[in-house]
Structures are given as C-alpha cells and as structure tokens.
C-alpha cells in the first residue's frame, strides 16, 4: 500500500516531533511538511494536528536509544538549530536510520545526515561564540544581557553561565526567539518573553563600559591592524550587543569632577 502524503501540525516541542514520527509509522503516512505551534497554515495538502502523548514519544525515544545512546541527544541539538525545515530533516534522518540500522551513524558524508551534522556544528560554534561575546550589565547588583543568536542557544548556554555566575542573579534575553533564561538562588528556567527593554546604565555601569572600551581600543597593535581576521573570528552580527562597539554617545558623559 502506498503511504499517504500529509502535513502534520504539532505543538512545536521535541516530544511533539517524536509523536509525529510515531503517527507516521502507525498510520502509514508520509509527512511532506511540519507546522509548529505558531506557523500559519495554508495548503492544499491534507493537514492533521498530532497531539503530543508522552507514551508515543517515549516509544520512539526508546527505539532510538536502542540503536545508539548518542542519537537522541544529537537530535535534540538539531532541534535547536536554525536549519531550514528541521522537522522534515530530522524525520528523513530517522526513517533512514530505522531502515539501515546503527551502522548508518558512521556515514558522516550521507546527504541526509551531513546537513544535520553541519547544522549542529553551526549551533555549537554559535554557543561557543556567545559564551565569550555575551555582555552583562549590572543593574542593582543583578546581571542582565541581551543576545541575537540564529540558533536557540539558551539551553546550551545555561550550564556554562549557571556555573560561572553561581552566586549571582542574572537573566539573558534572546531577542530572536523571544525567550529569557532566568537564574537566581541556584535555580534556572527558560521562559518565553515577548518584549523586553534594557534599562539605561547607571554611573558605575557606564564607568565600567568606558573602561572596557578603552582597554579594547588600547590592546590592539596599530601596526598589525587586520580587519579581515577580526571579522573571521568575530562576525559582525555579534557586534551590536557587545559593549566595545557601542559608540561613546550611548554611554552618558562623566560627571564633572
């Protein structure tokens, strides 16, 4: 019997996606697209909403774990990337993995597998970048930062910053995906947050920003100036949330001595 083409609408969670895979196998359907929670849907294809059931998701998770303990963590990471049609890419990967078994996982150059690997590399690189390029401001003893990542990096930044800023209270706002990582008293959570406006810096904060900008400008060796290398290591898209690239005007002038 031929598998039917269909579009799945799901709740946008990873477990939801696993349920779609379950649905596809039990109903012998062949998804051609996935719509997440907020996506608009206009299509001539048949569309059905897949309800997320823990048992179904667990069934798929168990089967994947049996093939290799690394698959599920890998797919969770793919799910955080900004890969185009990532649900479809994950679905196709899983289908192929079921068909070929665990040895498929060593075929790093396979056309279904390799884009996923590349997307995860992009995600890891961005996480690594933001560990360094993220800038906190201090407001009344609390730390706050804004970032504009392409991938959903907050779950991956969580462990690092919770350890680094263990005794602090802090938040990191992700402008792209409109969510925030909140941390205080040893507990952290990620919550959706539609709009957020950073408070202007107070005197102490402004002074530190000025010191840092000055340090940054001073540490470069003029005779070795190399804008291309700088841009390779630190793409310009990060600059607008970094203190050292804010013009002096954004920092209020020093109070008269």
């Amino acid at each position, binding site marked *: 019997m031929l598998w039917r083409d269909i579009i799945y609408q799901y709740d946008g969670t990873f477990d939801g996606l696993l349920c779609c895979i379950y649905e596809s196998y039990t109903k012998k359907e062949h998804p051609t697209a996935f719509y997440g929670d907020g996506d608009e849907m206009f299509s001539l294809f048949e569309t059905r909403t897949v309800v997320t059931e823990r048992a179904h998701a667990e069934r798929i998770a168990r089967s994947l774990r049996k093939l290799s303990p690394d698959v599920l963590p890998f797919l969770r990471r793919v799910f955080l990337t900004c890969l185009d049609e990532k649900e479809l890419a994950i679905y196709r990967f899983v289908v192929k993995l079921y068909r070929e078994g665990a*040895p*498929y996982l*060593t*075929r*790093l*150059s396979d056309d279904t597998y*390799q884009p996923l690997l590349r997307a995860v590399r992009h995600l890891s690189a961005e996480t*690594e970048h933001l*560990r*360094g*390029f*993220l*800038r*906190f*401001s*201090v407001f009344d003893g609390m*730390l706050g*930062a804004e970032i504009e990542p392409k991938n959903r990096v907050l779950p991956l930044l969580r462990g*690092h910053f919770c*350890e*680094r*800023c*263990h*005794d*602090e209270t802090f938040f990191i706002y992700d402008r792209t995906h409109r969510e925030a990582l909140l941390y205080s008293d040893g507990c952290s959570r990620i919550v959706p947050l539609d709009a957020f406006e950073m408070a202007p810096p107070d005197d102490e904060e402004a002074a*530190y920003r*000025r*010191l*840092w900008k*000055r*340090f*940054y*400008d*001073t*540490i*470069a*060796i*003029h*005779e*070795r*100036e*190399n*804008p*291309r*290398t*700088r841009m*390779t*290591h*630190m793409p310009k898209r990060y600059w607008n949330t*970094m*203190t*050292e690239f804010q013009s002096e005007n954004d920092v209020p002038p020093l109070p008269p001595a």
Partner: protein
Amino acid sequence: MELLEKLTILADAAKYDAACTSSGAKRGHKEGMIGCTSSAVAGCCHTFSADGRCVTLLKVLLSNDCSYECKYCVNRRSNDVPRATFEPRELAELTIGFYRRNYIEGLFLSSAVLTSPDRTTERMIAALRLLREEYRFNGYIHAKAIPGTSPELVSQLGLLADRLSVNIELPSETSLRALAPNKTKAAILAPMRQIRDRAAESKAELVKYRSAPRFAPAGQSTQLIVGASGESDRHIMRLTESLYGRFSLKRVFYSAYVPVVESTLLPSLDTKPPLLREHRLYQADWLLRFYGFRADELLDESQPNFDPRLDPKCCWALRHPEFFPVEANRADYEALLRVPGVGVVSAKRILVARRTGPLHADDLKKLGVVMKRAQYFLTCSGRLATPLRLSGAGILANLMAVERATLPAEAGEQLSLFA
C-alpha cells in the same frame, strides 16, 4: 592619576605580549568564590581586537616603571613615556568588575622590573593574593615570572596563578646579549626549569592528596620575538621543539617585531612587522604539536627558512613525492594527517566514515577535507582525487594560487616579486 588613564598606559605597555589564552585549567565553581575557569578545552575568547588577536584576559602590567634597558622594548628605562603603577586594590576591583560582566576570563599580569626582579615579584604576589583571598576570585590568572627572581618567590607565584610564563625574548644568546643586556639565557632558563619541576611535583602530590596545593595547573608558556635579530626559521623551530620537549611547555608564542625604537642594532623604524613569517611559524608550531612532524623534517640546512608563498605542510608534501599519494580508504591516521588539506578533525571523520563503505572524492569534501589542497595528494579506492595530471611544478603553481587568495592584499603584492 585616574583609573581610566592608568588602564590606558598599562594596557598599552602590555599589548606586545602575544599570549592570551585561558586554556588548560579546569576548575569548577567553589563555594563563596567568584567564577570558575572555562570548562572548554580551548579556553574562551571574549573579543577580538582590531589586529585580529583574541582577547580573553585583562592583559596589563602591574607597572611600566622599568629599570632595565632592553633595546627593543617601549618600557625601557631611557624611553620617555608616561609611567604608572596599579594599586593592588584597584587592579582587583577592575578584574572582578570586568569578570562579572563577562568581558574577560581572568587576569594576565606582567610587570616591568621595579628596581629588582624580587621586589617586582613580591608586589605581583601581593596583588594576586589580594585578588584570590580577599576578593575570592576563582577565575584564570596568567602571571609572568621575571628572570632572576628567587625560587621561593616563583613557587609562591605559581600557587596563585593558573599559568606561568617566562619570556625567552630572543631566539639566541648572542641576540640576547646585544639587545637585552640585563637578561641572560641562564637567568631565563632557571625559572622555566623550576616551574617544570615544581608543576610535576605538584601533579604527583595531587595523586596522593586531593587537597594538595596546585602549582600552575595550566602549565607554562613562553614568547620570543621574531624579526628583531637574524636567526633563521630553522633555528627557531628547533628551539621550539626543544622547549616543548625539555621544558614541557604548553605553548610557544611568536611575536613579529614591531619597531618601536630607533636603534642601530635593530631593524629601522619603517620596517613592517614580519606578519607572514610569524604566521608560517605558527603553522609549523601546529605541525609539531598536533601533526606529528619534527622540526628537522620541515626545514634543513639547504632550506633554513619557510617559503612565504606556501604553508609549511604543502612545502613538505612537495618535497616528499615518494610519500604520496595517500589512499584515503586505507591509510592510517598519522599518514592522513600529513596530507595538505586534511586536519585533525577531518582525519578523524575519515576514520569513522570509511567503516561502512569506501569513500569517494566528493565524500571527502563533505567530511571537511580542503580539496583545493588535498586533491593532488589523495587517492580514493586507487583513483586520484583530481581530474588533473600535474607535474610537481604544476601542483606548486596551483597550490600557490590557492594560497595567494587567502593572504592579505599587500602580502600578495610583495609575493608577486618572487613569481
């Protein structure tokens, strides 16, 4: 003097130090302390300065008020520059303030020689102790050990810092005598030897007692200036190799000489820093540390310097046609690493990917092999990866064309003189 001004003077004076890494120390959060050292293997870059160098530490001198007279140095006694010295408390507050805002991973503290090496080191120890003990700073600290410091002070310094470094400054004793009259080879090597032995001792103690004090857990590094004196690349590479071997250094840094001083002993003030040469030395340094090359394989007496037009690995490959082609589906890891265009990561991927079936040329590309370079040196199931059949000279010309595109514009122009 205002803090902003002090920071400007003391960062400006420290900027010629190449080392700025926060790698090698894994220390988690500690109760009541601020921060931790990065868990990532490669450290953490917090920004890149306009010259494209990674900034990960607050790199400053404790003071630039130097009593030495090194000819190549901006801070030498006879130079007319503004002088400043940090108060330990000032420095500690600055470090903590920057650290909390995620500007830096920690502190890189060096200093000019204030009257004597011992006096200077005592002041550095006082500043670091304040930072560690009163300000409870648990982040990364890189401290410079000044040649001529007494061993007791070096061992105190090593207990406060994650990494120590002693600058070897110039690649030979002759140059040292001419350009840095207050420093001798013996005085430089003595603390390096001490740091090596003390770190090994500390590791052995840690095996027995979990709470044994850690001495420079991230090891030691050094730096030498390239292009201020006449040594060949071969000399520098052999020196590097022996430093890695005999002193178990973590890194050797090269710093292209930037002329800051008019002196008959030095290149003239309008000389451009030899950046391409420095780049080639770093490439060769990587070949020594990660690719299993030895210094004598890369350069010999007939060819004492690297070819600026090609990277050292390509040069080696072209001189050893008998080693190639390497069969991607069969060769061992060490052989794959010697192929231009194949790196540590792509070599490992090849090993994994070929388990389930033979690889073809387009698979290699997807695994991250740079085929622009590798195609002349690899076969896939007996078939050469390139459609072209070229002689050694033809390969050289093609590789040079690939390389030219990656070099900065002026370097390309300079190079056209050779062609």
